[in-house]
């Protein structure tokens, strides 16, 4: 089943979450938990969620994105959603969905820039220690 492996990458003090596939609700909820626990573990200050591959953002996924942003903020981190397809944006507006509390930018570069400006992180601090922190393992997701 797609959606079972979503990586969470740490670049500098930013968590990068590239969502490559359509996710079922459980995967979305699991992802939310994973992001929050990674925030706690790594002390990251920013969360960058890349939804450039995501075609469907319905009310549930939209709400979870908002929730992630709200929770991350309570944990002293900013959330940026990047790469939203124009069609998705149109759909969200027609659907009447606002991604409250979520900042959106066009692409990953812009997102990192935004977060860096926000926290005043110097260039030398990031980029090189690019490593994968955890994988979403299919086994962790209970699909019956």
């Amino acid at each position, binding site marked *: 089943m797609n959606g079972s492996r979503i990586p969470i990458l740490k670049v500098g003090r930013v968590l990068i979450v590239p969502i490559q596939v*359509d996710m*079922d609700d459980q995967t979305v909820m699991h992802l939310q938990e994973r992001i929050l626990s990674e925030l706690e573990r790594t002390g990251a200050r920013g969360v960058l969620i890349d939804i450039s591959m995501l075609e*469907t953002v319905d*009310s549930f996924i939209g709400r979870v994105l908002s929730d992630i942003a709200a929770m991350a903020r309570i944990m002293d981190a900013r959330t940026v959603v990047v790469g939203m397809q124009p069609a998705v944006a*149109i*759909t969200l507006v*027609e659907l*009447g969905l606002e991604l409250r509390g979520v900042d959106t930018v066009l692409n990953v570069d812009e997102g990192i820039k935004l977060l860096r400006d926000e926290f005043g992180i110097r260039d030398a601090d990031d980029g090189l220690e690019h490593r994968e922190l955890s994988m979403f393992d299919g086994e962790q997701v209970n699909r019956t």
Partner: protein
Amino acid sequence: MQGIKSTRIGEIYVRREADIVSVRDRVRRVARDLGFDSTTQIKVTTAISELTRNIYEYAQTGAITLAVAERGAATVGLQVMARDDGPGIDEARLHAIMRGSYRSGSGMGVGLAGTRRLMDEFEIETKPGEGTRITVIKWLPPVAAATVQGRVAELRSHFGEDADDSAVEEIVRQNRDLVAVLGELEEKRNEMERLNRQLNESNRELNEANAKLRELAEMREEFLALTTHDLRSPLTVISGVISFFSSGRLGELSTEQKNMVAMMERNTQSLIELINDLLDASKIESGTMRLELSAVDLRALIRDVHESMGPLAHEKGIAIEERLPDDLPPLSADHEKLRRVIVNLLSNALKFTPKGGRVEVGAGRSSGDTPGVRVVVADTGVGIAPGDLARLFNKYGQARSRATRGETGTGLGLYIARQLVEMHGGTIDVQSEVGKGSTFSFTLPVTDSNQN
């Protein structure tokens, strides 16, 4: 919807949360293949995702049906019907939802209103308690519409897994049936167990009753054996004393006295016979009757019996005729038992033959497959009704027609005769015609097989 012709493409059951993804995936592919541009594909997919989510959230199960909608000749679109048997929506809330002022606890309350905005046609039928049925249509731009005709089969291929879906549904249904059947079976099994317990209980009671009956039967046989034995002893004494009188050793008797002594003798004799019958029957019943085999001269035996029965026959004015060939083979038999069989048959014949009648006793080689000897006792007596023949050889089976004629006897004679003949490995038979007489015959084998 009015004026719209729809051709079904396929259906997806919504039962699990993961089905929402599956719905999204198929709707997207169908929308793409129908020729919707990518933005519209995403709009439609998102709208249907909302509808599916509502089904799962409020009704838990339902179905999404995809169809090609046609209005008139040129307008073609994708029709999606979402139906469930959930709680439905009341009018006030539906109004709030559609106006956009409703806020649900889980989503953001934009589902239905948003779906209506994303789709071209929107129709909802719902009532509290009667489920919800929502039909939406997205029309294709006229250019794309022209290419849709006749492609439904191709679109249906996206529902290749639909077969799996309905197979799953079928299996679920069969499982439910199976569970029901198993339940019934379990019930039946319980019922059967209960019946079995009852049966066991009754069986146990029956066994007890049976054992008691057997015990009683044994006691009765024992009693019979003991009493008859005890009865015979004094009778032997009486019989001995009588023979003293009749022998004349105690002085010459007057004619009247002689008659009385003769009467006593006759009655004592019949009493002894009766008791012997009872004793034999009881021995046969208890299985203690044993044969003492020896070479028996049948000719001499029949002569002897004839002689001893002579006075009785003479008294009744019945002639006994013998038909004994010279070449009778020697028999291996119990002399006393065989004598008893012949006596019983002969006395039976005499008993039921009126004065002036004729009794014939004969013997000869039997004509059956196995070599044997056949003994025949025929009379010109009253005969036996066909209905009585069958139980003639049963214990106490004296024919009713005879018993009513005031004849005495225990009814054991023939029973004993048959038992003794069968102990010798032989068979006994009777043929009779009412008013003309009866013919009793028995056959004994002459080979070694007559040992029992």
